[in-house]
């Protein structure tokens, strides 16, 4: 699997390169600024891009802008954005085209190697990997939503994990329940929120995120 990486801190960039390579990824290019990121994404068309939000030369959200521009040129290009901070506004912009293949994680999630690599693979496969913090804030800012307030605490928990992009199996493992129990919860959630039922995990996640992002 080919990866393009953008990170301006040399130490972190090298760390990420070796981390990805030990897990069987091929790093096609590792860049340290916005313009070369856009060029690398368009030239290499990688299976997934791992991008730091804040990049030179302007040290603003250059990485995010480059990733969004690349996705406009190559629709559906999987992008995993890493950031020191997660912002709902940016999550919304990344998810706006509704095609999936989007990840948005705090940089310190990299510490948990297994989870991080899993997230990269999920995004590369067209799935979603949203940081738990984005999702919990998203749910918190929807407190006035009546259908959402009808969910049981357990269902809310499942909803949050689902919105992060986890599969039923992963959710079951995390909550230490059977996969069948998770399937039952998700069915309840979809009924309560009046969302169209689908078996496709990716479409399901996007529907939930779109609901929360209204």
């Amino acid at each position, binding site marked *: 699997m080919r990866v393009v990486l953008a990170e301006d801190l040399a130490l972190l960039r090298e760390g990420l390169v070796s981390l990805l390579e030990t897990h069987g990824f091929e790093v096609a290019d590792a860049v340290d600024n916005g313009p070369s990121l856009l060029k690398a994404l368009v030239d290499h068309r990688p299976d997934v891009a791992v991008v730091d939000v804040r990049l030179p030369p302007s040290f*603003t959200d250059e990485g995010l802008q480059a990733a969004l521009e690349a996705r406009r040129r190559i629709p559906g290009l999987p992008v995993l954005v890493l950031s020191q901070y997660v912002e*709902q506004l940016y999550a919304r912009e990344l998810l706006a085209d509704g095609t999936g293949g989007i990840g948005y994680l705090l940089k*310190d999630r990299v*510490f948990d190697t297994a989870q991080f690599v899993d997230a990269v693979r999920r995004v590369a496969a067209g799935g979603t990997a949203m940081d738990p913090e984005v999702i919990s804030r998203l749910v918190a*800012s929807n407190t*006035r939503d009546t259908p959402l307030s009808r969910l049981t605490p357990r269902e809310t928990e499942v909803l949050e994990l689902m919105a992060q992009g986890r599969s039923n199996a992963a959710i079951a493992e995390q909550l230490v329940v059977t996969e069948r129990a998770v399937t039952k919860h998700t069915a309840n959630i979809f009924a309560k929120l009046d969302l169209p039922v689908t078996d496709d995990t990716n479409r399901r996640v996007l529907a939930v995120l779109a609901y929360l992002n209204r």
Partner: protein
Amino acid sequence: MNEHKVYEHEVTEHGVTERPVSETSLQRRLRAPWRGLGLWLRSIPATFVGLWFAAVVTLVGGFVGILLFPSATMALRRQLDGYREKIERWTGHPIERPYLPEPAREPGVKGSVRRSLALARDPATWRDYLWVLADPFVALFTAALPALLIGYGLWGYAVAAFAGKLITNYGGNDWYAYVHVTDGYGHDTGRIASTLVVATLLIAAGFLLGPAMMRVYGRWGRSVLGPTEKSRLALRVRHLTESRSDAVDASAAELRRIERDLHDGAQARLVAMGMSLGAIEHLLDKDPEKARTLLAQTRESSAKALHELRDLVRGIHPPVLADRGIGDAVKALALDHPLQVEVVAELPARPEPPVESAAYFAVSEVLTNAAKHSGASRVWVDMRHERGMLRITVTDDGRGGASLDGGTGLRGIERRIGTFDGVLALNSPVGGPTIVTLELPCALSSPKTSPS
């Protein structure tokens, strides 16, 4: 209407911008003569106050004069504040109070002497006196002139209709303008017609001249009642001194808060992590299982420390504000807000960073207030740049009745944006809605780059 009044008052008090005049030019034309007459009649009470002031000044060599001088000066100032307010309302040009900072009241004779001296040294005191002396004559030939012309015109109608006849019947004679009212006037249609023409022309002239005369009078008012360049600068210096010390206080408090947060938060966690790592090193051979548990805890500690640092940085300078400017930063704020917040931002470029940051935190605090106190369910934020001003309006559909001094923190916001000559206006009738308007003078520039 109420909304406008508050805003007008707040803004003009600081002399920031002209008041929007909310009457048609026809209305203004019809009203101006009577307003001018009113201003002229004002000089009657003003003259009495002026005479009292003059009398006190002649006594100033003695004890009684010293004691009375401050109160007489203050009475004069109050009287002239009425002129300032009326002229501002009717010409649309604010007149700032020109007085130097008032000396504090001190007890005893010494205090009175010092106060009198300070007031006597303020040139504005003597300019006030000049106004009282000269204004009756100036007003007669400017503001009051249109009303007098109209009055004379009406008298012309009366003369033509019946008064001319009455005058001549009793053997008298009179002039109306150039028309001689003598025996036979009542039967002379030529003379009556000229009287009517002159009278009509005078009335028309009165209404036509009204607004122009009001403007001339306004200029006279500004030149005498307004501050001189020197006192304007003195007032400006005072304002800057105050706002500078507010700014220094605020940033010192902010630094103390950051220091405390670091000390109690991240720093304490790092110390704890260092200790845990020491313990882990010690346990590694003896009790690997325990070491593993401690390691997991330590990692959690590091995550918490990072989390706290992130929150701290967000409080100092939010990332979206740094990346995108105030428009998107407030939109990001709205997404995290418990109420439904709609944001409209029409800003072609970014304000200067310090102004932008001050405005952002002001909006953030107003939104927090709305969530806490207003009982609102929806909030609208409107941001635009007009005539060199960043203007932000925050409206909520809550219960209203907010006040600047109700412990709502609005006074604090006002002080902080005051550092940038910004003003805050609040309109919050009981029953809502509450509208908070912030205005900060600033130029727009392209975003500056700074290292992360």
